[in-house]
């Protein structure tokens, strides 16, 4: 069974998914960050494949990606760094990146490499549902990887249902109409949207992301979904704690969870 499904079977709430950009702050931090997040009790890790033109991301993630690319990160380097990761941890691992990266690498080659290193799922924000069905569904389903789709407050009910049919692993609920970036509060309109989707009884679990940055917003998200995704706030944190990376990650996760 896919590690993401195993995780959701075991754990029903308070799930914490942390995003980091591969190759940031230093090119070879990937393994250290993954293992430190695992030890700190994170449930899922989203590995960002740095991209030159990340249109769904805010300045924090974009800048970390530019730095990672300057550091020399490429898909081949990343796959190499992950070659032995599965002998060290069984935490579910996702790749987050843009469709052009996958297309240029070659879809088959990319999926094979993901399976070989033990990636469990993909988040590709600029892959629309109709293109997925037409060009990728068959291949991705065959690979055993889960494809994680986004929904937003603007996504119609019919479309949410359709996405729920196609998605695997979980549904990524974008908390607000926005690009990624840490905001500190959740508004009433957002809470209404969380409750509305919660009442739909979707077959996939949901994690709420974009703007989850501290214990309070993490808690609020957990009331309406199985958990939350934290990206920009984590990137900000590690850019301030470059050298003391390992210890600071434990501290960051404890503060988020509030223990």
């Amino acid at each position: 069974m896919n590690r993401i499904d195993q995780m959701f079977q075991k754990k029903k709430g308070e799930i914490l998914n942390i995003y980091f950009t591969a190759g940031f702050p230093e090119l070879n931090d990937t393994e250290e960050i993954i293992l430190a997040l695992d030890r700190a009790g994170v449930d899922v890790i989203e590995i960002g494949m740095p991209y030159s033109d990340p249109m769904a991301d805010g300045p924090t993630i974009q800048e970390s990606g530019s730095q990672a690319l300057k550091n020399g990160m490429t898909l081949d380097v990343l796959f190499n760094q992950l070659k032995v990761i599965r002998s060290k941890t069984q935490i579910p691992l996702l790749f987050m990146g843009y469709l052009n990266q996958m297309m240029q690498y070659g879809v088959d080659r990319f999926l094979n490499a993901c399976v070989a290193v033990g990636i469990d799922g993909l988040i590709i924000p600029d892959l629309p549902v109709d293109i997925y069905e037409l060009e990728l569904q068959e291949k991705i389903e065959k690979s055993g990887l889960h494809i994680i789709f986004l929904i937003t407050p603007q996504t119609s009910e019919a479309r949410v249902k359709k996405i729920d049919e196609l998605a695997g692993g979980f549904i990524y609920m974008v908390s607000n109409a926005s690009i990624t970036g840490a905001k500190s509060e959740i508004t009433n309109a957002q809470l209404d949207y969380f409750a509305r989707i919660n009442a739909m009884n979707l077959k996939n679990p949901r994690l709420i992301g974009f703007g989850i940055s501290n214990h309070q917003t993490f808690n609020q998200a957990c009331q309406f979904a199985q958990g939350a995704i934290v990206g920009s706030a984590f990137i900000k944190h590690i850019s301030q704690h470059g050298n003391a990376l390992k210890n600071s990650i434990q501290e960051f996760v404890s503060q988020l969870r509030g223990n």
Partner: protein
Amino acid sequence: MHYSVDGRGFYGEFGGAFIPEMLHSNIEELKSRYLEIMEEKDFQDEMQQLLKNYVGRPTPLYYAKRLSLHFNAHIYLKREDLNHTGAHKINNTIGQILLAKRLGKSRIIAETGAGQHGVATATVCALMGLECIVYMGEIDIARQAPNVSRMKMLGAKVVPATSGSKTLKDATNEAIRDWINNPNDTHYIIGSVVGPHPYPDMVARFQSVISEEMKWQLKEQTGSENPDIIMACVGGGSNAAGAYYHYLDEDQVRLVAVEAAGLGVDSGESAATSVLGTKGIIHGSRTLLMQTEDGQIIEPYSISAGLDYPGIGPLHAHLIDTGRAEAISITDAEALEAAFLLTRLEGIIPALESAHAFAAMSYLKYRPEDVIVINLSGRGDKDLSTYIKKMES
């Protein structure tokens, strides 16, 4: 028309809408409404009236006698430089602002390279009393200063794009992000035939007035609607799309796309997408673009801010891929020289973008009897400091 967009938003294998879910409802609204709104009588009436009395259309088709003698051909200039605000860009912004009003939008955003599209957007926003925010690369803000001042005088807010190459590509990223953050009240006026479907088709339709006029003007002046060759510069490709539009299915009319080679196609400092590009996705569209093996978009370079873009619109990718259009690339130095040639022979100072199209005459294969239309997409006022530097060197 077999070069027009299909039901899924593709030109052959190019085009589509590769957008994050956060943009889905905006793009869907536009896709489901743009044709119906554009066909409404009151929309057409208002647009035609503005194009005539505000923009100054039809623009002349001018037989360039001395230039023709120089190159031993029959060269006609489509004078888009004589439009209000000085370029073809306003054909599109007039159309899109009327559309935005009918969609009930109150806030307008745009990206700009040379600043011509930014000025054209700020202009129609002033005309309609709508809020206007223009994203512009930091480098372009420096090299197109007069247009930045014009936008500000027109009441627009100019926001510098500071990521990546700090030019048109990055300004477009910032505009897309703004739209994601403001999904309800905002319309994004894209300035070229790029971006997710329906933008390439919509912008091409608004620019198609160029070739619509060319048809009757050529008929009047040469006795035939069809020229032998139409030549235009291509950044994203909107002025070229407009100049080609009504000739796409006239296979005997040769279509020539002129790209910016920058310091030279092989110099590493270029924007010649049809030569250096491969199939990929940029700004929500599958098209030809300059990228690394790893799919990272390469930062382009051209002296001309309007051509400094690493992709081309999906229609042009399709035209080039199928052989319907030919591509020629022109260096900075060649474009500068052509700007002076046109100025001295015809008394017309062209925009640096348009100057590329004239420089291509030196590479074009033609017969002396050929009727050639060059789309003079804009005037050179904004490039005066570059021209002054050239005169002083």
